[in-house]
């Protein structure tokens, strides 16, 4: 009886101890993640060098755990002890001082270290990326063959009809006319002439109107920069890079330092595979490396912005010199969205010209677009229109179009 009791007691304590150990480890890992995110993550990643070194295997690198604790709590004080490893590290990272964390307890630091061990290396545990996209069926060929077959059938039927007529003429004894060959048949001539006139006229007009217009122009750029990835997936505002669009005539092409604001840290592409116009997969990471070449940036070293050279992007949208166009007038005063003129830019891999930028296109928009009169100090000068809108003389649903405030006058854009 006593024996069984002691066994029961022992096993119970063993279970309790085991349980508490498990619990504490679980709690440690949990706390470790939170502590890492709150204290370390702005300068350190587990598998990547950022402002500070990658933390995987940090315990193996430090000769002594107490030193590591002392370093984390107050790195500046620890440096003064003359520790060789710490000083080498400090110099390797360009003498960037690590923040002091005097409030972290030993257990908390150990929890962080325990969490660091649990983070798997990137690429180790990633499943197959998405199933293949459904194959789009193209019916053009099918329709073509069908048209051809029908045409052949029609031809055969016509021939049959002609032969039957000939036979019946022979039977009734009417004089048989020799058929005129098609190259001497005047009906054929007339038909072909009309067809040529229509097709030729259409092509000539279209070609002539297309002079000087570059709709759908989509040049290859020095770097495969995807607006879809930046403005679409990652929701970067257009004006983050094109900051001048609301301030002046030009939308401004960002200089390399604007790219480097993010790409100092983002040195690899990990998103959905990018496909170019030919359907080939674009290596995003290689494109980022191209940027580093322009920037004169070597990974792991501090970036000297004065070494950067400009990227010579190919200009797409270009108006003739005899037209004046100002971005800020449209974006700031007119509150027009970028997409109105540039298309769904947040879905474009390579940018292409969306509008033909013809005068008819400009004028059409000026005729139809309502000016935002309400709460827009820019148009407070049009007192009469404001009064008429108030008194109902002008239908407020229709509003004031750009044309009404002189938006289709010649000298508005040509001067």
């Amino acid at each position, binding site marked *: 009886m006593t024996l069984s009791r002691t066994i029961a007691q022992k096993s119970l304590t063993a279970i309790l101890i085991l349980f508490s150990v498990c619990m504490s480890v679980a709690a440690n890992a949990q706390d470790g993640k939170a502590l890492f*995110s709150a204290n370390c*993550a*702005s*300068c*350190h*990643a587990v598998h*990547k060098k*950022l*402002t500070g070194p990658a933390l995987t295997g940090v315990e193996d690198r430090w000769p002594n755990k107490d030193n590591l604790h002392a370093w984390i709590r107050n790195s500046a004080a620890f440096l003064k002890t003359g520790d060789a490893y710490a000083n080498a590290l400090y110099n390797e990272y*360009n*003498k*960037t*001082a690590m923040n002091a964390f005097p409030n972290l307890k030993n257990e908390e630091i150990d929890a962080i270290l325990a969490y660091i061990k649990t983070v798997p290396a990137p690429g180790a545990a990633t499943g197959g990326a998405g199933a293949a996209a459904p194959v789009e069926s193209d019916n053009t060929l099918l329709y073509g063959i069908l048209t051809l077959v029908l045409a052949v059938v029609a031809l055969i039927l016509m021939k049959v009809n002609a032969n039957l007529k000939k036979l019946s003429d022979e039977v009734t004894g009417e004089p048989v006319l020799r058929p005129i060959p098609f190259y001497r048949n005047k009906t054929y001539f007339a038909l072909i002439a009309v067809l040529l006139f229509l097709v030729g006229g259409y092509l000539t007009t279209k070609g*002539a109107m*297309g*002079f*000087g*217009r*570059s*709709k*759908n*122009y*989509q*040049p*290859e750029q020095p770097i495969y920069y995807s607006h879809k990835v930046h403005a679409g997936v*990652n*929701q*970067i*505002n257009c*004006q*983050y890079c094109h*900051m001048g669009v609301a301030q002046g*005539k*030009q939308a401004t*092409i960002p*200089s390399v*330092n*604007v790219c*480097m*604001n*993010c790409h*100092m*840290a*983002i040195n690899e*592409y*990990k*998103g959905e595979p990018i496909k170019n*116009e*030919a359907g080939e997969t674009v290596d995003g990471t290689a494109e980022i490396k191209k940027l580093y070449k322009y920037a004169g940036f070597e990974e792991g070293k*501090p970036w000297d*912005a004065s070494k950067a050279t400009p990227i010579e992007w190919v*200009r797409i949208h*270009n108006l*003739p*010199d*005899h037209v004046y166009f100002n971005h800020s007038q449209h974006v700031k005063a007119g509150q027009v969205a970028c997409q109105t003129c540039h298309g769904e830019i947040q879905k474009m891999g390579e940018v*292409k010209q969306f509008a033909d930028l013809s005068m008819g296109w400009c004028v059409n928009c000026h005729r139809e677009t309502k000016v935002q009169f309400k709460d827009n100090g820019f148009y407070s000068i049009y007192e009469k229109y404001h009064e008429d809108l108030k008194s109902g003389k002008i239908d407020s649903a229709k509003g004031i179009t750009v044309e009404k405030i002189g938006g289709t006058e010649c000298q508005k854009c040509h001067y």
Partner: protein
Amino acid sequence: MKNTSIIACLTAVVALVACSDVKRTPGSIYMPDMAYSRAYESYSDNSNLAEKGINYNNRPVEGTISREEEMPFHIAKDLPGDSINYVASKLVKNPYDTLSATDKDEAERLYLINCGICHGANLKGNGPLYKDGNGPYPAKPASLVGDAKYEAMPAGQMFYSVTYGKNLMGSYASQLSRKQRWKVIAYVKAKQQEGNKAAPVAATATPATAPAK
């Protein structure tokens, strides 16, 4: 006769195959009257102006201040491994300590465009580029509201970081004018104060995850 027809067929096939949907060249132009600028346009190559004997400098004269712009920030960037100027910047006062309603709207707009992408629309350091570590940005951006370190950071030191960059954050001097930078910092400071006042309430409510515009 037969040969010519074969050649014609082949050329037609080649021409059809060569046609791609992608237009890599701009359209041609006929009689470009006043289409090309005689003057140097923005972003045109102006490297050969000196050869032509034209004196051109694309930078403003040193020491000039553009209209309605703030006075220059007199603290220089620290040398590597140094933090004297970073510490000294604590004493600089924000000339736009209190924002008017319109200024606040403008500062908010600028914050959401330039800062919110990393620091989050709610200033909690979780913008669409970080997304709790699922975004492309590998480091956790500073949580401007709710982190004692940044709540206590003086406006001058924030201005130093925004102007010259700090750690992984780059310089925003080319994107925001000095005036705009001060106003954005005043906006951040105002949000921190609001956050402190509303802290007991916000603790119970679910954190709003406003989508970035």
